[in-house]
């Protein structure tokens, strides 16, 4: 087996750091016991209490997405530098870590996914909750039929001033926050209403039934997307909000920030 070590040794020879994706406690201990080794932990939470930790907003199923997002976050936090060689240990089949891949950090591949969560006006937890909500809605639909939905998160005061009500606001004088247990069911029912949901920085659902009136000038979103995406994308250019859109036609969840498409996920993949 010594021969195998030589061959596979290339994978982790002279790496700048080891990146562990959601390691178990004992696994992490073994790595942190190795001297002169930079260990970075990436995951949805940090149960092992690692010092260098990058938070993932979603437990990405797709390995390359998981690694790309994690490394972008690490680059953003100046934990790693452009061109660093990294040994990324992650799990593909089971919960245990079973795969090592050698990745070179590339700052040019900047997509802004990490910025979407960490550098938006709204709280990262709120954005995460809305994204999960949209994904869940996309997975199940309304009574088995696909639904579309448009969530505008953050900078709610400005968004409210750049929109008008289509009908009475069902959330008026209510104190519903995303992440409350009842919200998923409630929003699923309300998703058949037209218009956008407006959610404040702290996660309060301010209004449903909003007709957005941004100027669509200079909005660069892929051709072929409908009015919902256009409205969502455009309002993020006019305000500091972000838009999370569930497409009715192709079932994908997309996120816009500053008028640009940042993230595209398939609900079926989660």
């Amino acid at each position, binding site marked *: 087996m010594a021969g195998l070590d030589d061959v596979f040794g290339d994978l982790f020879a002279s790496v700048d750091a080891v990146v562990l994706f959601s390691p178990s406690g004992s696994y992490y201990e073994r790595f942190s016991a190795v001297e002169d080794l930079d260990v970075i932990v990436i995951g949805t939470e940090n149960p092992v209490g690692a010092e260098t930790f990058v938070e993932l907003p979603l437990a990405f199923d797709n390995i390359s997405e998981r690694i790309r997002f994690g490394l972008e976050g690490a680059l953003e936090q100046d934990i790693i530098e452009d061109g660093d060689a990294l040994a990324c240990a992650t799990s593909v089949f089971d919960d245990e870590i079973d795969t090592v891949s050698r990745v070179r950090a590339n700052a040019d591949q900047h997509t802004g996914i990490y910025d979407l969560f960490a550098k938006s006006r709204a709280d990262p937890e709120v954005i995460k909750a809305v994204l999960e909500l949209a994904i869940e809605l996309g997975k199940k639909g309304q009574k088995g039929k696909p639904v579309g939905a448009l969530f505008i998160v953050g900078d709610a*005061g400005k968004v*409210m001033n750049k929109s008008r009500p289509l009908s009475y606001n069902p959330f008026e004088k209510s104190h519903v926050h995303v992440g409350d247990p009842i919200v998923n069911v409630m929003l699923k029912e309300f998703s058949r209403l037209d218009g956008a949901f407006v959610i404040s*920085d*702290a996660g*309060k659902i301010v209004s449903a039934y909003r007709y957005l009136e941004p100027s669509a000038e200079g909005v660069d979103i892929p051709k072929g997307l409908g009015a919902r995406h256009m409205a969502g994308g455009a309002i993020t250019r006019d305000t500091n909000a972000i838009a999370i859109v569930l497409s009715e036609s192709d079932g994908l969840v997309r996120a816009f920030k500053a008028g640009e498409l940042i993230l595209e996920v398939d609900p079926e993949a989660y």
Partner: protein
Amino acid sequence: MVDWQALVDEPAVIAAAVLVLGLIVGYLVGRLNKELLSASGVPDAVEGTPFERTAQSIGTSTVDIVARLSSWFIYGIAVLTAIHIAQLLDTDAFWLRVTEFIPQVFVAVLVLILGFIIADKVELVVSEYFRGVKLPEISIVPKLLKYSVLYVAFIIALGQIGVHILALLILLAVYAAGVVLVGTFAFKDFLVSSAVGIYLLLNQPYSIGDEITIGDQTGIVQEVDLFVTKIETDSQEYIVPNRKVFEEGIVRMRE
């Protein structure tokens, strides 16, 4: 048959029977207690407290100690009753005092154990809560709470076994009054703000998206919570304590 009758009437036999019965009942009560405590989730609740850890290190557990305590209490009663029946010690005064004293000691010990566990648990929970605040001085708060709870437990336990605790009670009263005074003084603004905040959340005189003026600050409302209202203009973001809403009044801008 006659022999049997004579034997049953013998005080020593009755005493032995009482003793055996006491041992059996004590053992059963101990077991029952243990089962009940385990079923009601006590082991989970006390997990991680120093008391439990100390108990573990000497090869037992909190549940075991409490259960055994109740057993011993019943053993003790049985032994005393047996002694009394067998008339080994014929001193009524002594007997009277002991019967009064034993339950008190039992309750006192129970209160102490409970006090230790609650104190440890309070310290754990509070320090867990403060973990997000990375400030070394904050670690004094859980400690202070722990010793406050312990102090109260000691007073109750001492009171139970009849020690004069007036001085300790006065100390406690002074301490509590101090905490309340300092608390109201320090949190006065918070209390006022949250009272106004409740009114604002219930009545919503203004909501997110309205343009309002509070005092000198004019802007669009971004967020209303219990303590503060966040309003902002294009370049500034004001975080206004809610009490200012009542002190200065609100001006709602109409277009």
